[in-house]
C-alpha cells in the first residue's frame, strides 16, 4: 500500500527535492541509499505486511532454534531473526550497538561496562534487563553445556559479573580483551531472558517464534514491540530448508519462494535471464585458503611456502574457481579489519622466482605433493584443480586427494600437510584466536611464530584502536612474509531474489541475504 504524500501547507519557498536532486544524491554515494530506506520507517513509500518466503541452503533433523548453538546455515538464518545481541555488524562490517546503548572498557580492557537501551522488550513482553545479560553469558559459558561461542569468553570471570542497576552490567575479564565488541556482534550471542527454554524460544529479535519443524521449515511472526522504529516491515517470515541446490533454484524460478541464499555459480545465469528475478552479489571477507603445515616437509622451509604462493595466478583462480564472483587475496586474511595491511604489494604469479626458491630449497628436480580437497565450500575443488595446473609450470606435481566433507573434517582435519579450508569474515584478532595462535582450536597450519605471537599478545592489551591497528599491520606483514596460508582470494556471496522484494543490500559479513536481515525487507506487489 503506497502511502499518499502529506498535504503541503507551506508556502512554495521550500520546494520538495526534485527528482533530479534525489538522483544526484543517489549517485554521490551508494551508501546514501540504504540510509534513506532505513529511516523511512512505516510511514513512507513501500508496502507493509505480507509473508516473506525464504529458501536457505542446508538443514537437517538436527536443526535447532537454540540461540547459542546454531551451526548450520538454516540455524544461523533463524537465530539472526529471533534474537538480537548487544552489538551487531553493519553491512560494511563496522560495529553497531544493538540492544546495548554502550559497551565501554576500562583502561586496560579487563573490565567492560554494558549499558542497555531503555524500554527494550522480549517477545513475551518482559523487559530486557541486566539480569538477562548475565543469564545469557552464564548460559553460553556453562562448562557442562557450552554454547558455540564459549571459547571466545574463556577469559570472562563468569562468577564475578555484576549487576550495577537494572540496565547496567560490569563484566570482569582475567586478561585484557580488546575485541569484545566483535564477539558481542556475532550471531551466537543473542540475549535471552532468564529461564530461557529453546523449546519455546524467546528473544528480542525482530521476529518471534510461531512454528518449527527441524529439517523442513519454520514460521516466525513480527515482534510488535521491536525496538527499531517501523521494523520489521513484513508480518510473517517463513524459512524453508533446501538440502539440494537445484531444488532451491527451481523453487525461486517457479515462484514458490521469494528469496534464496547461496546461488550456485552455475545457476547465476539462469536467475539473471529471468526478468522477475535478480541476484544480490556481495563481496565478503570469506576466504578459501590453501593450508600448508609449517612444521612438516616440504613446507617447513619458508622458501617452499613462498614459492607455492608465487605459483598461484590469483586472477585466473578467481575467474575459474569462483566464476569471477570473488576478488584476489594477498596471503592475508581479515581484509575488513581496520588494521588490514594495504601497504604490502599485491603478490602476483612469478614462476621464475618460484622455481628459483624451490631450487634453493633443494627441489631443483621438481617436487611432488598431495593436496587434500573436497566439497567443503563451493569453489574449493575447482581451486585445487586450477592450482594443480598452475603448479605444473613450476615443476611441481600436485596429486589431488578428494575426500567427502565429513572425512575432510574427520579425524585427520587439522593434520593434513597440504589441504584447504574456508573461513568467514572475521577481524584479525578474532581470526588469530580461532586459527593461528598455537592454542587456537583450528590452527591448521601449525603456525607458531614467536615474533608474531608477541605482537598478537601486545595487540590484545592495546585499547587504543589506532595503536592496535599499527601492531596488527606488523603482524600481518609477518604472515605475508612467512605464514602457512595461501590466501588467493575472497569469495563473493551470491543470492537470488524476486524483484518485488525490496531492502536487501550487499553485505561483507559473509552471511547471505544481508546477514539474513529480513527485518529490512518489504514486499511490493
Amino acid at each position, binding site marked *: 500500500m503506497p502511502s499518499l504524500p502529506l498535504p503541503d501547507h507551506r508556502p512554495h519557498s521550500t520546494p520538495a527535492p526534485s527528482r533530479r536532486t534525489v538522483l544526484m544524491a543517489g549517485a554521490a554515494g551508494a551508501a546514501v541509499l540504504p540510509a534513506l530506506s532505513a529511516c523511512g520507517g512505516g510511514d513512507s513509500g513501500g508496502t507493509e505486511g505480507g509473508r516473506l518466503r525464504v529458501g536457505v541452503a542446508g538443514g*537437517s533433523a538436527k536443526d535447532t532454534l537454540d540461540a547459542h548453538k546454531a551451526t548450520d546455515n538454516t540455524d544461523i538464518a533463524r537465530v539472526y531473526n529471533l534474537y538480537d545481541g548487544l552489538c551487531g555488524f553493519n553491512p560494511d562490517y563496522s560495529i553497531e550497538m544493538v540492544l546495548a546503548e554502550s559497551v565501554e572498557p576500562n583502561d586496560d580492557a579487563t573490565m567492560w561496562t554494558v549499558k542497555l537501551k531503555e524500554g527494550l522488550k522480549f517477545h513475551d513482553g518482559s523487559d530486557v534487563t541486566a539480569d538477562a545479560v548475565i543469564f545469557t553469558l552464564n548460559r553460553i559459558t556453562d562448562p557442562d553445556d557450552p554454547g558455540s561461542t564459549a571459547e571466545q569468553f574463556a577469559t570472562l570471570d563468569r562468577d564475578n559479573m555484576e549487576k550495577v542497576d537494572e540496565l547496567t552490567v560490569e563484566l570482569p575479564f582475567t586478561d585484557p580483551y580488546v575485541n569484545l565488541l566483535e564477539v558481542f556482534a556475532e550471531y551466537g550471542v543473542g540475549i535471552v531472558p532468564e529461564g530461557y527454554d529453546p523449546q519455546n524460544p524467546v528473544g528480542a529479535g525482530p521476529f518471534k517464534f510461531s512454528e518449527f*519443524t527441524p529439517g523442513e521449515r519454520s514460521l516466525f511472526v513480527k515482534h510488535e514491540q521491536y525496538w527499531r522504529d517501523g521494523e520489521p516491515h513484513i508480518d510473517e517470515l517463513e524459512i524453508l530448508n*533446501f*538440502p539440494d541446490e537445484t531444488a532451491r533454484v527451481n*523453487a525461486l*524460478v*517457479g515462484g514458490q519462494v521469494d528469496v534464496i541464499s547461496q546461488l550456485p555459480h552455475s545457476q547465476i545465469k539462469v536467475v539473471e535471464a529471468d526478468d522477475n528475478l535478480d541476484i544480490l552479489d556481495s563481496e565478503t571477507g570469506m576466504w578459501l585458503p590453501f593450508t600448508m603445515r609449517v612444521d612438516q616437509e616440504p613446507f617447513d622451509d619458508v622458501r617452499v611456502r613462498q614459492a607455492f604462493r608465487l605459483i598461484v595466478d590469483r586472477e585466473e583462480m578467481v575467474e575459474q574457481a569462483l566464476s569471477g564472483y570473488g576478488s584476489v587475496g594477498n596471503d592475508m586474511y581479515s581484509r575488513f579489519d581496520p588494521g588490514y595491511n594495504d601497504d604490502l604489494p599485491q603478490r602476483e604469479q612469478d614462476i621464475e622466482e618460484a622455481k628459483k626458491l624451490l631450487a634453493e630449497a633443494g627441489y631443483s628436480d621438481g617436487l611432488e605433493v598431495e593436496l587434500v580437497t573436497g566439497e567443503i565450500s563451493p569453489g574449493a575443488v575447482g581451486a585445487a584443480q586450477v592450482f594443480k595446473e598452475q603448479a605444473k609450470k613450476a615443476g611441481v606435481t600436485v596429486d589431488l586427494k578428494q575426500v567427502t566433507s565429513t572425512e575432510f573434517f*574427520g579425524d585427520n582435519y587439522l593434520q593434513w600437510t597440504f589441504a584447504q579450508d574456508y573461513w568467514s569474515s572475521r577481524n584479525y584478532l578474532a581470526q588469530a584466536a580461532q586459527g593461528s595462535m598455537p592454542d587456537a582450536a583450528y590452527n591448521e597450519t601449525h603456525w607458531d611464530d614467536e615474533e608474531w605471537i608477541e605482537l598478537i599478545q601486545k595487540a590484545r592489551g592495546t585499547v587504543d584502536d589506532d595503536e592496535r591497528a599499527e601492531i596488527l599491520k606488523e603482524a600481518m606483514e609477518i604472515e605475508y612474509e612467512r605464514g602457512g596460508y595461501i590466501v588467493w582470494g575472497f569469495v563473493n556471496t551470491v543470492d537470488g531474489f524476486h524483484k518485488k522484494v525490496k531492502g536487501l543490500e550487499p553485505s561483507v559479513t559473509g552471511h547471505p541475504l544481508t546477514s539474513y536481515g529480513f527485518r529490512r525487507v518489504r514486499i511490493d506487489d
Partner: protein
Amino acid sequence: MIRLILHRLFYGLVTLFVVSLVVFLATQALPGDAAQAMLGREATPERLAALRDQLRLNDPLAVQYGSWIAGIFTFDLGMSYAANMPVADHLAPRVTASLSLMAIAALVATPISLLLGAYSALRRDRALDHGTSMATLILAAIPEFAVGILLILAFSTGWLQLFPAVYAGSASDVMRDPRQLVLPVATLVLAVSPPIIRMMRASMIEVLESEYVQQARLKGLPERTVILRHAGPNAIGPVAQVIALQLGWLAGGVVAIEFLFRFPGIGLALMDAIDTRDIPVIQAVTLLIAVVYIVVNLLADVVGLAANPKVRVSSR
C-alpha cells in the same frame, strides 16, 4: 498353500535380519561417526568425547547392534541421534507423507497402464502400439530422477510454467496444496508404468490368440463382451505380479524423487540420516523399505499361486 506362505514369511524375516546387519556394518564403514557429523567443524576433542558418550558410540559394535535389535522386538526403534527424539516419532509424519505420495502414484499408474497396455494389444502393430512400445522402452531406460528433471524443465521452470517445481510444505500436511504433488507423482508414474504396460500388452495378446477367445468370437458374441468379459480378466492375472513388484519398487524409488522435489518423506529422511550418520534412523528406514519389498513380493507370489490352479493344487 498356507505352509508355503509360512515358509516364505520365515525367509522374509531372515532376509530382514540380514539387511539390518548389512546396513549396520555398512554405516560403520562410512568415514566419521554421528558425533563427528553432527559437530562438523565445531568438533573439538572435548565436545566429540562428550557427545560420543552421550550417544553411547563408545560401546563395542556388538553391544550397539544388540541393544538396537533387542529394541526392535519391543517395537522400540531407539532414539534418533540428530533429531534427539524417538525414531518412531521422528519418522511417523514422513512415513505418512511418503505413503500418500506412493498411494496416489499407484492409483494413477495402475489403471492407466492396464488400459494403455490392453489398448496397445488391440491395436497391435499400428502407430499407437509402436509409439507406446518405443516410449515405454525409453522411459524404462532413463533413471527416474532424470525423468523428474525433464518434467521440471518442461512444466515448471522452463517451457510451460504450470506446476510448482518443488514441494514447499511440511510432512504433516501434504494435501494442503495438491498442485505441488503433480510433478513428483507424474515422475513416479512414468517410472513404474512401463513394465506394467508392456506386460499387459503381452498378456493381452496371448489371451486374444487363445482358443476360448476365438470360441467366444465364433459364438457371435459382440467384440465388447469378448474383450471386457472374457479376455480382460484373464489377461490381468499374470500382470498382477508385475504390478505388485512395481509398487514395491516405489518404496525405494521414492528416495531419489523426494530429494529432487524436496518432498519431506522417508527418502529425504534417509539422505539426511546418512549425512548425519544417524544410524537408528538409517536402520529404521532401510528396514521399512525392505519390509515393503518382502510383503509385496509375498503378495505377488500369493496372487500368482491363487491364479494358477496347477500350482494351487500341487503345493497343497
